[in-house]
């Protein structure tokens, strides 16, 4: 094994709540995770688990009803949570952390030409001249495989795949340290999805960028992932190396999530989780997954901390508490 890459982004106890008339929605509730240079961390979970809010919290793209917003986000050795909004906008957003928003293909400005849209971040955030920005935009569009004569076209004249590529070029044009991809392929056809995934793999190899990929498509996420973080009800319940995660998930929720993915070449009957993810208005006390968990036991009424497994994997489940594994063999984790 060679030396692990240096850590680019580190979130510690990051929280983002939304104010509503019925009380605070705890969308991101004490999230810790690390992203290393030139790697991709995939954040998976069901709709409403707080994945997209986590992206917004990192990029500080807060809606008007944002309430509690605290914790630490370290970009290299700077805690960017301490910056004021103006410096954050000038120094961090898009220049060092950029994003491909959900449904990016529909997020493009319909009345602006593709070339102008892709070069805009370079003008605004990098203070480039229009000419230089256009040059960077052209280079990046070529890089992501958008033909150069599309520069003068509008979004509606492009196919879904080409729009997705343009949105990606827009996020990469400033050569940021971190790119957040929110469901980058979910609205696309299988074949287009495959070519976008191949493109992102190539981008990861060629540029020194790190990626945070937010998705509910587990099979697709496995194409890009170095690390996997599983989110449930505003919290990360498992995080660790992707290869080991995909062969043997630890948390009962991860297990259920993986088991519900239809397989092409296996005849095992998929299992599924009954019920719905809990409301983030009043998340259950104790373990948040306990009401849907097949392995629930009395200890689950207490909130589990993160346990370390296999050296560097983390899992938020009492089953991995050494004391419990020793004292109650009936709760042994079945591998």
């Amino acid at each position: 094994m060679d030396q692990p890459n240096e850590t680019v982004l580190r979130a510690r106890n990051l929280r983002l709540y939304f104010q509503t008339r019925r009380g605070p929605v705890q969308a991101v509730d004490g999230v810790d995770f690390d992203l290393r240079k030139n790697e991709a961390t995939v954040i998976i979970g069901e709709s409403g688990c707080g994945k997209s809010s986590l992206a917004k919290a990192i990029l500080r793209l807060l809606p008007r009803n944002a309430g509690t917003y605290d914790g630490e986000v370290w970009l290299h050795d700077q805690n960017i949570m301490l910056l004021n909004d103006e410096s954050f906008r000038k120094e961090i957003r898009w220049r060092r952390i950029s994003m491909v928003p959900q449904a990016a293909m529909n997020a493009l400005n319909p009345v602006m030409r593709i070339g102008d849209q892709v070069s805009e971040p370079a003008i605004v955030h990098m203070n480039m001249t229009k000419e230089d920005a256009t040059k960077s935009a052209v280079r990046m569009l070529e890089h992501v495989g958008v033909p150069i004569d599309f520069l003068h076209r509008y979004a509606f004249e492009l196919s879904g795949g080409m729009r997705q590529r343009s949105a990606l070029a827009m996020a990469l044009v400033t050569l940021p340290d971190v790119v957040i991809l929110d469901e980058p392929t979910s609205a696309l056809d299988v074949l287009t999805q495959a070519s976008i995934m191949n493109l992102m793999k190539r981008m990861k190899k060629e540029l020194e960028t790190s990626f945070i990929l937010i998705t509910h498509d587990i099979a697709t996420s496995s194409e890009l992932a170095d690390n996997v973080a599983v989110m449930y009800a505003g919290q990360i319940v498992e995080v660790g190396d992707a290869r080991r995660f995909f062969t043997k998930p630890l948390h009962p929720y991860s297990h259920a999530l993986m088991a519900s993915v239809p397989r092409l070449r296996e005849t095992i009957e998929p299992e599924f989780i009954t019920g719905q993810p809990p409301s983030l208005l009043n998340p259950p006390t104790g373990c948040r997954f306990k009401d849907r968990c097949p392995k629930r036991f009395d200890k689950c009424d207490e909130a589990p901390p993160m346990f370390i497994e296999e050296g560097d994997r983390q899992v938020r489940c009492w089953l991995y508490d050494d004391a419990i594994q020793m004292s109650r063999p009936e709760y042994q984790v079945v591998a």
Partner: protein
Amino acid sequence: MDNGNNVLLDIKNLRTQFFTEGGVVHAVDGINFSVRRGEVVGLVGESGCGKSVTSLSIMRLIAQPGRIVEGQIIFDNEDLVALPESRMVNIRGNRVSMIFQQPQSSLNPVFRVGDQLSEVLQIHQDVGKEVGERRAIELLTMVGVPDPESRIKAFPHELSGGMAQRVMIAMALACVPELLIADEPTTALDVTIQAQILDLMRNLRTKMDTAIILITHDLGVVAEMCDWVNVMYAGRIVEQAPVVELFKTPKHPYTVALIGSTPILGHADKPLTTIPGSVPNLVDLPTGCKFWPRCTARIQHNLEICDKEEPALKTIAPNHTVRCWLYE
């Protein structure tokens, strides 16, 4: 194929075209397949290959400027194409029903879901309002909607995507159809909800012997649900086979690429297969095989006939047909 009595739906040489200002769109161009009772048949292919138009043709929901120009859709010994609309309304939503893509936009936004559900029953089964409401609650319970007594009073915008999809399914199942057409029923849903919905459909088939036509581009779902698969390209069927055989020995270069483009968990080392180019314009189709401009097998095998003459569907193994010059 084997015993004919069990065949519920038999589509023969169906052609559906749209007469637009830009020309005639050959959306479905002569397809044949049949569905037996209790069988799940998959229709797969990229967007724009004619999957949805096929299902809308079966439902006789092709709107202007479209028209079924040729062929027969034999449903339980009756040709739906020739049936007057007055009799079609008794079949549609009753004996044949459909789950549409995008549940949120297929439900009526200004009616409560309970009323939309009981409307189906009031029309087709002539039940009163109260019975309709009670049945609506039963149906919602059956599809796993929590707290159905209060959910029947909800408007569609108050439901999540998964809930709205279940309401759509409940509506499609209200009259216990003999044939259910599910058009991308789980595309908009989380994997966990998807697994629940697929399980529901499987139950329906085993308990009520409902036949299902499943339209999807998710091959994982196909592998899990279907008995038979029809692969469509440019309004045609290019390969037809039982599901296990199709995934084990795909023959058509298009099918091979489709399967190769699907990511497999934990095997991310090699790039996914892609196909250059995009689906052809259905107004101005290429001559010969409709897939030749994107086909790599044609170049590998140095086939000269592909762009000149269209191959026919050829039976290459029992129950396995393919439309490709490689197998002539």
